[in-house]
């Protein structure tokens, strides 16, 4: 069943995207930026999840999705008003749906009670919708929408799974009208894409071609058609359902669409008319007499069929009562072709991977799914190539071959090509931060309801791209920053009202590129940091000296100190045993920085910056006590040779360097890292002026500078173990291993060694 497993994996990947679409759409509805298409997209997302889940027999998921979908359908058709309350409910329902998906995937559990309560709430809302027969009405819609949605096509694979779902609906539907068309034929559902018209093709011609194969009877589905004023005259909204009576084969029917391949979504299913002689006699009067119950009856088999595919015995039929008056007699009849269709549908589902390439998404939007391991391997290889290229360059240089020689020129070109390959490979791994951001609205909702605050999350820059290695590590710090902003940053609704702010707090989550790094900012419009209180706590906890003079910024950043927590009591939300110090440490381990700035009364901003990639680094190669080390270029402000008059002794061992009107502490890398016991005279070496993550400067003393180079980062933790002061390692052109310095850690190491009245004070004093 490997093949099925593979399809299932794809399905769950699709689910993630669909859930994101769902949430995005609902948030747009909440913001009032939605249009008819948004509601459709939201509906389609849930519907597609249900369709796929049905094919895999994920019953709890199907059941929940069905209730959800039913309500959404009422919203879509305008029977239920999309009030803010409803959207809030739908958002919570989307969270439960996400839980169901995770559970179906074997990751995590569903809170059954919550799920039932939510389903009940969704159903109840449907009832309040004011529609005279909501169940029947929405059932009609969902029955007919199956085909519509199918062709809307979220992705080829999922469509194929959806196919497994659709034929039953159609065949049952066909059953109802079987008296009219007794001959066999095909049900062709055509949903032209806008591209079809743009390429000067015409759906009318397709219909005319179909008619050559036999008599056709078209019905047009205009449920996606917006108001005249809102419509894009060159976009395609209609779906045509063509009942084609013919003895031609499916291939013949498909041939009609040969020239519009990819520009229209197409479903072709056999008509089952001739198979069910008893049905017409019964159903014809029923159709006239009671159209709505019939619709319900149509819907009921739809659900049965879902269960049938899943091979589950218990069929969830949500509207048995409505179906009762008409359903029992035709049901067995209807089920026969349905079962046949289910059998027919199975190979379709199994054949999905083979079929997928044929029905690939239209031009311009094709996406390849690649196993990340393959890309990692490619990146490793390119890294080796970079190292190898550097090695050859070095050998050539050692042999004293002139720069103008053909060999040297060829090497230069090779270097450029290598760089380009490296950049391109890195670009493959670059992903928008959206995948992390999209999990945040839910977090904010949950935290907000836990602490009883009203919060609106505004997200910007979701398209900002960053390497996969970084993206995986963004989630935790962002989660923390958001929790902190909601719990500590924002005031209670009452407080906000008192100070004249809107009751709803706004938290902005933003991603942007700045100076070759990715910067994530979390801004709240809360009360800001209470500086006197923060300082008092830090003093009370013995974290800083009582008489220490600190700037506002320094006080703000005290919250990152180990052992600091501003909440009077540890709350459920922020106090999960992880303080901001842990966040800062994990961020620093990635070569990142985190800081906070605050304006009392107006709010605070957390700023997190990380390198765009964790795979390569621009570094300065230096020699220290016979060792070759790499200092990240991003940290270096400038390098200089100090003059004797610029170096001032400070205390017995310390020294500072005068740099343009200010003094910067001198830190000898060699003695700090333990390479040598005594620091040499700084004037004999080179000084690298570096900037720490908090903006503090230091002057690192090295013996010599070898040059500037892009190095491939090899994790020290993965290959050896973590070493303080060392961020990672790399392999140089000559094949030797060089350590990459963790600049902040080196500065901190030095600070810790410096004499201090209190053990913890120097860390702050130096900041």
């Amino acid at each position, binding site marked *: 069943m490997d093949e099925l497993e593979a399809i299932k994996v794809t399905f769950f990947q699709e689910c993630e995207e669909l859930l994101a679409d769902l949430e995005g759409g609902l948030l747009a509805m909440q913001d009032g930026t939605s249009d008819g298409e948004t509601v459709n997209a939201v509906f389609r997302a849930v519907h597609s999840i249900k369709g796929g889940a049905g094919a895999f027999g994920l019953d709890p998921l199907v059941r929940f999705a069905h209730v959800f979908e039913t309500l959404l359908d009422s919203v879509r058709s305008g029977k239920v008003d999309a009030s803010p309350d409803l959207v809030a409910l739908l958002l919570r329902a989307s969270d439960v749906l996400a839980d169901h998906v995770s559970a179906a995937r074997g990751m995590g559990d569903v809170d059954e009670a919550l799920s039932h309560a939510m389903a009940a709430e969704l159903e109840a809302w449907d009832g309040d919708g004011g529609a005279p027969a909501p169940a029947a009405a929405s059932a009609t819609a969902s029955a007919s929408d199956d085909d519509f949605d199918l062709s809307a096509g979220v992705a080829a694979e999922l469509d194929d799974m959806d196919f497994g779902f659709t034929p039953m609906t159609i065949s049952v539907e066909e059953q109802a009208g079987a008296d009219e068309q007794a001959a066999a034929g095909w049900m062709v559902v055509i949903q032209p894409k806008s591209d079809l018209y743009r390429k000067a093709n015409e759906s009318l011609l397709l219909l005319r071609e179909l008619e050559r194969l036999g008599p056709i009877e078209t019905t047009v589905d205009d449920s996606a*058609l917006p108001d005249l004023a809102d419509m894009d005259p060159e976009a395609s909204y209609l779906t045509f359902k063509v009942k084609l009576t013919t003895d031609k084969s499916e291939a013949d029917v498909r041939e009609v669409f040969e020239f519009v391949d990819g520009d229209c979504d197409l479903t072709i299913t056999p008509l089952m008319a001739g198979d069910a002689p008893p049905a017409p006699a019964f159903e014809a009067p029923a159709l006239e007499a009671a159209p709505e119950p019939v619709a319900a009856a149509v819907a009921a088999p739809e659900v049965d069929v879902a269960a049938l595919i899943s091979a589950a015995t218990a069929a969830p039929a949500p509207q048995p009562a409505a179906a009762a008056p008409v359903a029992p007699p035709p049901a067995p009849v209807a089920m026969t072709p349905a079962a046949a269709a289910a059998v027919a549908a199975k190979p379709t589902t199994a054949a999905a991977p083979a079929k997928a390439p044929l029905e690939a998404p239209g031009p311009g939007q094709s996406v390849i799914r690649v196993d990340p391991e393959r890309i990692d391997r490619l990146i490793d290889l390119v890294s080796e190539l970079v190292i190898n290229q550097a090695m050859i360059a070095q050998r050539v240089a050692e042999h004293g071959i002139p720069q103008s020689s053909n060999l040297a020129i060829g090497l230069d070109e090779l270097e450029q090509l290598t760089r380009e390959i490296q950049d391109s490979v890195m670009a493959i791994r670059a992903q928008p931060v959206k995948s992390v951001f999209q999990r945040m609205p839910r977090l904010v909702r949950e935290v907000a309801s836990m602490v009883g605050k009203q919060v609106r999350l505004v997200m910007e820059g979701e398209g900002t791209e960053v390497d996969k290695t970084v993206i995986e590590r963004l989630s935790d710090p962002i989660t923390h920053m958001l929790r902190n902003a909601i719990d500590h940053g924002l005031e209670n609704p009452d407080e906000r009202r008192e100070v004249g702010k809107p009751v709803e707090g706004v938290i902005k989550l933003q991603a942007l590129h700045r100076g070759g790094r990715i910067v994530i900012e979390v801004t709240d419009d809360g009360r800001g940091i209470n500086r006197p209180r923060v300082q008092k706590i830090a003093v009370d906890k013995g974290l800083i000296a009582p008489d220490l003079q600190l700037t506002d910024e320094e006080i703000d950043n005290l919250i990152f100190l180990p052992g600091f927590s501003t909440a009077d009591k540890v709350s459920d939300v922020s106090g999960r045993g992880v303080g901001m110090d842990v966040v800062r440490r994990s961020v620093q381990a990635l070569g990142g920085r985190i800081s906070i700035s605050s304006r009392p009364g107006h709010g605070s901003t957390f700023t997190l910056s990380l390198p765009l990639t964790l795979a390569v680094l621009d570094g300065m190669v230096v020699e220290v006590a016979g060792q070759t080390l790499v200092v990240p270029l991003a940290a270096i402000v400038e390098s200089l040779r100090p003059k004797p008059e610029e170096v001032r002794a400070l205390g017995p061992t310390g020294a500072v360097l005068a740099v343009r009107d200010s003094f910067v502490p001198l830190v000898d890398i060699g003695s700090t890292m333990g390479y040598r016991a005594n620091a040499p005279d700084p004037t004999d070496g080179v000084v690298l002026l570096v900037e720490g993550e908090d903006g503090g400067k230091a002057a690192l003393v090295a013996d010599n500078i070898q040059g500037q180079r892009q190095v491939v980062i090899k994790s020290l933790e993965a290959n050896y173990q973590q070493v303080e002061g060392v961020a990672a390692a790399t392999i140089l052109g000559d094949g030797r291993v060089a350590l990459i310095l963790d600049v902040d850690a080196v500065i901190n190491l030095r600070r810790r060694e410096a004499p201090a009245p209190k053990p913890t004070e120097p860390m702050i004093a130096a900041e």
Partner: protein
Amino acid sequence: MAQMTLPETMDLKAAAGLKASILAQRGSPLELDASGVRRLGGLCLQVLMAAASTWRTDGQSFSLTNPSESFAEAIRLFGADAALGTAIHGA
């Protein structure tokens, strides 16, 4: 009662203009003369359907008169009789 004559060729190029000129008549009853239509494409069909539904919502009358043979055939092939059927007169 506003009256308009539909163009001979109602294809991709005609759709935007058709939408604009119909929309300009919003608020008053509208009668569209379809006698000269030789080609009706899917995009213009959408405009007509949306217009019919918008006019219906507005409570104004909307009609298509003197449909040409091509126009009537297209409507039949599209299966749009039900959506536009009541609006077509004088077939």
